[in-house]
């Protein structure tokens, strides 16, 4: 396989607003033709990163490279990138046709060619016959398509998407996820996608960049990110995790919850303190005699496909997802396969996340709501 060149590189980028550090020595390389997602909570710096690439913001320090050439200070209107804005930013005083033609008009493209390309674009996004419609009277999904057409018609090398689906309802969002991925495949250009929705990130991207507090936490394929989280933050942010304090007495053995487990990890100093992550679906509930650990079921929630069961083991609340039904008060054993145990070095996030003692459905819904409102 030939080496794919980097289309965009960010080198040692720092950014601050009102003296507050938003991006902290950020480094990022994005390969040509990839679907890259910047994933993180609001305020993690993902939108700032996108706006630096678009040229709306200039970093305090660091380099922005496009095709290995520095583009710091190049104004947005001269960059070969286009943006899909969060609420589309369609021009209310122009109709669909004029919105899409906008970029070409500014480049003084001949009228006949504009007409041809706009029509091609309208076919591409499935909006034939909408030319004369006012953009303010379109549905959210249609506005989204106009925004895509308006950006893509300029043949950008990179398309930047700033939470483009956040204004849509759930069903439309799922459909648009598939459609966006298809559009990216057809065009073959780089998409840089910003979202706080981890499902969206995992299902659409070639590469996911998990960010927090202005720093990159992990870069990898969705599968790598999910299966091999590099620190407690990523483990907690992507999916559900039981995160425990442990030590590594020797290679291939992890000690946590008062028990030595076989595992696949090595290369730690003897007795080095570590974070141990176990995904809830990787824990098996077994009869007490066969269990490695023993505890009491304190909560059972039916989730449709599976049950979410909280098991208290010496005060640590484990979350377990299983298709078998258990009842509150049952005393059960837990069994964990060696490959389900993820050992990671202690980081600044150690101790911030852990068990599910404060777990409740309501709390989760509340925190999701507030996250949607931000940014």
């Amino acid at each position, binding site marked *: 396989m030939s080496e794919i060149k980097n289309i965009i590189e960010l080198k040692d980028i720092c950014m601050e607003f009102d003296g507050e550090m938003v991006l902290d020595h950020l480094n990022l390389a994005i390969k040509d033709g990839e679907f890259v997602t910047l994933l993180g909570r609001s305020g993690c710096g993902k939108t700032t990163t996108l706006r630096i690439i*678009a*040229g*709306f913001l200039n970093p305090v320090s660091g380099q922005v490279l496009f095709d290995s050439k520095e583009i710091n200070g190049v*104004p*947005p*209107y*001269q960059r070969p*990138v*286009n*943006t899909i*804005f*969060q*609420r589309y*930013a*369609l*021009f*209310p*005083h*122009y*109709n669909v046709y*004029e919105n899409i*033609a*906008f*970029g070409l*008009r*500014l*480049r003084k493209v001949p009228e006949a060619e504009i007409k041809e390309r706009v029509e091609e674009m309208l076919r591409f996004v499935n909006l034939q016959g909408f030319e*004369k419609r*006012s*953009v*303010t009277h379109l549905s959210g999904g249609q506005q989204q398509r106009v925004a895509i057409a*308006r*950006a893509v018609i*300029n043949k950008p090398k990179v398309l930047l998407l700033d939470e483009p689906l956040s204004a849509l309802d759930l069903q439309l969002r799922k459909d648009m996820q598939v459609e966006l991925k298809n559009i990216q495949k057809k065009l073959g250009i780089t998409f840089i996608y910003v979202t706080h929705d981890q499902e969206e990130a995992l299902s659409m991207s070639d590469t996911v960049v998990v960010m927090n507090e202005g720093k990159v936490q992990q870069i990898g394929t969705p599968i790598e990110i999910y299966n091999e989280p590099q620190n407690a933050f990523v483990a907690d942010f992507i999916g559900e995790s039981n995160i425990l304090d442990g030590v590594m007495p020797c290679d291939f053995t992890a000690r946590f919850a008062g028990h030595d487990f076989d595992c696949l990890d090595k290369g730690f100093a003897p007795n080095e303190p570590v974070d141990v992550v176990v995904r809830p679906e990787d824990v098996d509930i077994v009869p007490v005699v066969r269990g490695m650990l023993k505890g009491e079921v304190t909560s059972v929630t039916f989730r449709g496909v599976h049950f979410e069961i909280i098991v208290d083991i010496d005060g640590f609340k484990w979350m377990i997802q299983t298709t078998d039904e258990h009842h509150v008060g049952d005393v059960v054993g837990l069994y964990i396969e060696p490959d389900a145990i993820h050992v990671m070095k202690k980081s600044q996030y150690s101790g911030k996340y852990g068990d599910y003692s404060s777990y409740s459905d309501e709390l989760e819904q509340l925190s999701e709501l507030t996250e949607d409102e931000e940014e």
Partner: protein
Amino acid sequence: MKQRRSYAQVLINAPYLLWAAIFILVPLFIVAYYAFTDASGAFTMANIKELANYKQTFWISIKYALIATAITFVIAYPFAYFMSKKSAAKQQMMMLLVMLPMWMNLLIRTYSWMNILERNGIINNLLGMMGLGPWKMIGTAGAVILGMVYNYLPYMILPIYTIMSKIDNSLLEAADDLGAHSFAKLRHIIWPLSLPGVISGIAMVFVPSISTFYISQKLGGGKIMLIGDTIERQIQTAYNYNLGAAISLVLMVFVLISMAVMNRFADDDGEGGGMIV
């Protein structure tokens, strides 16, 4: 239940509807009545025919009001644009400082300009110290237009600024992103989106300018007669209510028609059908 509801509805609407009918609508008909009758109340076209003698006055009033409106626009548009780009706190402060002089009585503001411009006024005193002048400024068209621009400039700034500050910043970024440099942005995005503000600014400056009588009285030095002066003279000095009513009627019809035309113009452009080049 329905009956009681509509009863309450009538009760709450009646006082205002009555008031509006008697004191807003009826007076307009009374103006028309006076315009077409003579002092004894008999029908006549004499007042309307008499208007021919005031052609020059109408023409000058329209001309001065148009020039004043154009000048306020040329000052206000860039001013409002720059203001809308400043920090929120600064914008608020600047807006307050623009509005403040409006709350000073127009008579005084105008009189103060007379003090500055008159033969023994402040400018000529200063010029005199340098051995220049005196210049004659009061009684010129320039002084009258200056008075209009001064008094009504805030009315132009206010609506333009309000609408500019409401333009969503992401629209400007989108234009930027699609290849628009600053002039293209001004022409294709800011200008068409701010047009409704410009239209109402024009109305808010043009209407009082064309109907003023105090500004022309003080700064026109009694030599420049505008429509407002003519009405004032007919009503307050000559007691010729019928002629005064006829002139008022024409002024009103002219103003209402020009407003309607301008609103139509604004609507057409706001439809979103227009081409951008």
